[in-house]
């Protein structure tokens, strides 16, 4: 019996935990902890891409997924000369074919600077005006190349501009079996296909080509026949699992995928040089497309027939990619319930070591303080003075709370420091404010915005060094009910109420001055936040009107929607990092306020599979 080492040149390692690096792809190891053999496998998926500028069907295509091009085709019955290039993100129109046409062949392994198109038809749908000319593209313009020896349409292609291959197709109602080889100058006869047919999916190189499936005119119909070319002769190999025509093939003779076959199939199959296997299906059934791709792991399908009667072509695009990584989406889970939560309390620390203090409930403004260990809350020593709508900064063992409203109403300038056990009085803010924003640490805190008595948005900013508050530069937009995250020298202020109106304004602070940044997706008050200026998140809040459960992440430049909380609410600060945050108390606009939720950001891990004998 052949051993694994004899086959692959190395032994199977024994490890106590699974590897986490991408180098594990394709390896087999024995996990001594779980007592099982494991490996990392890749998987593929189709996703939507950027739509074509020109709707088209039956066009040509060449190049790699993120550096390919489509050319020609038909828009309804109109033959097209338009050529579009794709960079992985967007399409750019470049020079037109000299002869507008569809149903043409392509040197599928070409590039955006060296493409080859040949044959085809200048009319659609009946009595096709078959052409034999070929055209070469040099990155700027198409120029006439040598003519095919046999004019035909729906001819398949493979290879490059200087080593191209055309095979199969039709002259009027006649299946063709000829193949022709192009050397960059002229076409020469190659070996004939074993099965004459058109609408074959072609790919690979001139000396290692693959021609799969097709349509046999005259009653033969769709076929699953597959043939390989070695530069000299064609050999019939394993048939494709599904008979189909007009499909696209991406990859090489020994590693390819086939997709978008007729009639409007979503199926995708992989070929490893010997056998076919099923791959994930496309979202939209289509055929007669202008797909391309030079790998089985990265292909693109553009345009085609969408399957609707009378369909004149579509412009949508799907891209196929493979990965060895599994992405786990971000989510919020239930945290421990607070002992006595309130609205508008302060929260500081991290997800597994946090403090919640102050706030208000129907009984009035509170001096309650609780600590969290990631599982449950414990009653701590109370604030020295009750405070509502204050702000905070720091950690569970070195925190600070400042500003807010005292029980008598109005605004206060109190500062209270927490050492993990007791609260003690610090030096006061220069200006009393409530519904103020705060972030940073106990020795480098930032207090910005808020409102003096009278519900007017303040633009004041103050910095705390652990002893005293000093005046900083003002924000561009004065507001209260805002949320602030980050550090004293790299902070983000989002949303708030200017007095007359709720706003979506966002500003960055660099320790010296405030500058405008990308606005929040909606107006926002009483929201919570966590993280840093380049890896932060804002969640909950009154999104105008009504409290929401949304979360948006921030990378320093753009906001992106993330996981929603289970419970809508606001009136809390939030704490933690952009990857591990805590929303404590505050609660919904009505009902209980003792809930907490914990955020875990999206993560990526290897797609590890346990090997079984079945």
């Amino acid at each position, binding site marked *: 019996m052949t051993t694994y080492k004899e086959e692959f040149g190395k032994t199977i390692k024994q490890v106590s935990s699974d590897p986490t690096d991408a180098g594990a792809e394709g390896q087999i190891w024995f996990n001594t902890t779980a007592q099982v053999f494991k490996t990392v496998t890749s998987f593929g998926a189709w996703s939507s891409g950027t739509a074509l500028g020109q709707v088209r069907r039956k066009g040509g295509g060449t190049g790699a997924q993120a550096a390919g091009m489509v050319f020609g085709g038909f828009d309804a019955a109109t033959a097209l000369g338009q050529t579009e290039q794709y960079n992985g993100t967007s399409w750019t129109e470049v020079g037109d074919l000299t002869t507008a046409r569809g149903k043409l062949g392509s040197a599928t392994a070409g590039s955006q600077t060296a493409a080859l198109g040949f044959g085809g038809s200048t009319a659609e749908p009946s009595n096709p005006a078959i052409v034999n000319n070929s055209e070469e593209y040099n990155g700027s313009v198409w120029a006439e190349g040598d003519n095919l020896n046999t004019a035909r349409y729906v001819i398949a292609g493979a290879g490059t501009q200087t080593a191209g291959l055309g095979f199969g197709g039709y002259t009027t109602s006649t299946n063709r079996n000829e193949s022709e080889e192009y050397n960059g100058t002229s076409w020469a006869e190659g070996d004939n296909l074993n099965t004459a047919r058109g609408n074959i999916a072609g790919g690979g190189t001139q000396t290692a080509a693959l021609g799969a499936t097709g349509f046999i005119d005259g009653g033969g119909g769709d076929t699953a026949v597959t043939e390989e070319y070695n530069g000299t002769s064609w050999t019939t190999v394993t048939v494709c699992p599904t008979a189909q025509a007009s499909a696209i093939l991406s990859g090489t003779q020994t590693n390819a995928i086939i997709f978008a076959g007729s009639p409007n199939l979503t199926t995708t199959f992989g070929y490893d040089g010997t056998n076919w296997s099923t791959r994930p299906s496309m979202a939209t059934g289509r055929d007669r497309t202008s797909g391309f791709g030079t790998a089985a792991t990265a292909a693109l399908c553009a345009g085609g027939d969408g399957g609707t009667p009378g369909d004149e072509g579509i412009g949508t695009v799907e891209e196929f990619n493979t990965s060895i990584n599994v992405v786990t989406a971000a*989510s919020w889970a239930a*945290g421990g*319930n607070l002992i006595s939560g309130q609205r508008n309390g302060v929260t500081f620390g991290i997800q597994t070591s946090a403090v919640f203090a102050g706030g208000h409930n129907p009984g009035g403004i509170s001096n309650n303080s609780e600590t969290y260990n990631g599982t449950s809350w414990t009653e701590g020593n109370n604030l020295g003075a009750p405070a509502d709508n204050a702000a905070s900064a720091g950690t569970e063992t070195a925190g600070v709370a400042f500003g807010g409203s005292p029980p008598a109403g109005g605004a206060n300038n109190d500062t209270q420091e927490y050492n993990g056990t007791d609260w003690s009085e610090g030096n006061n803010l220069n200006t009393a404010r409530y519904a103020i924003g705060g972030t940073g640490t106990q020795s480098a805190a930032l207090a910005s915005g808020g409102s003096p008595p009278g*519900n007017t948005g303040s633009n004041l900013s103050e910095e705390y060094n652990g002893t005293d508050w000093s005046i900083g530069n003002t924000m561009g937009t004065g507001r209260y009910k805002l949320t602030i995250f980050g550090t004293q020298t790299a902070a983000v202020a989002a949303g708030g109420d200017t007095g007359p109106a709720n706003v979506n304004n966002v500003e960055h602070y660099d320790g010296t001055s405030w500058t405008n940044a990308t606005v929040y997706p909606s107006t926002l008050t009483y929201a919570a936040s966590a993280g840093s200026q380049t890896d932060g998140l804002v969640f909950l809040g009154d999104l105008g009107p009504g409290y929401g459960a949304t979360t948006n992440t921030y990378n320093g430049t753009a906001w992106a929607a993330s996981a*929603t909380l289970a419970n*809508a609410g606001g009136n809390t600060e939030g704490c933690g990092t952009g990857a591990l945050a805590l929303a404590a108390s505050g609660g*919904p*606009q*009505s009902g209980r306020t003792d*809930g907490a939720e914990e955020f875990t950001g999206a993560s990526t891990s290897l797609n590890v599979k346990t090997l079984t004998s079945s």
Partner: protein
Amino acid sequence: MALFIYGTATNTGKGFFTHEDRQNFYLSGQPANVWVVGNNEKGALWLAEKNGVEKTKTEAQALVTAEVTAAQEAWDALSDEAKTRNDRPSQITLP
């Protein structure tokens, strides 16, 4: 098949709903301990495991509306000073 099931259940804190639960089904907590749960096998099992009491959508909506109405009335009775502490609750329409 309806998209959601409705029920009441008391949030017992840590572990009441997990990250895995959130990946497996839609979940939205509402006033009056009402939960809107994605109508799939795992969502239904979660509500049962939490000793939830299944409600019709109409019943669940009535519970939520009553709770919010009470909260609105309480907010309306607050002093102007107290009203600045949080916004007036607005009615919620269950999905």
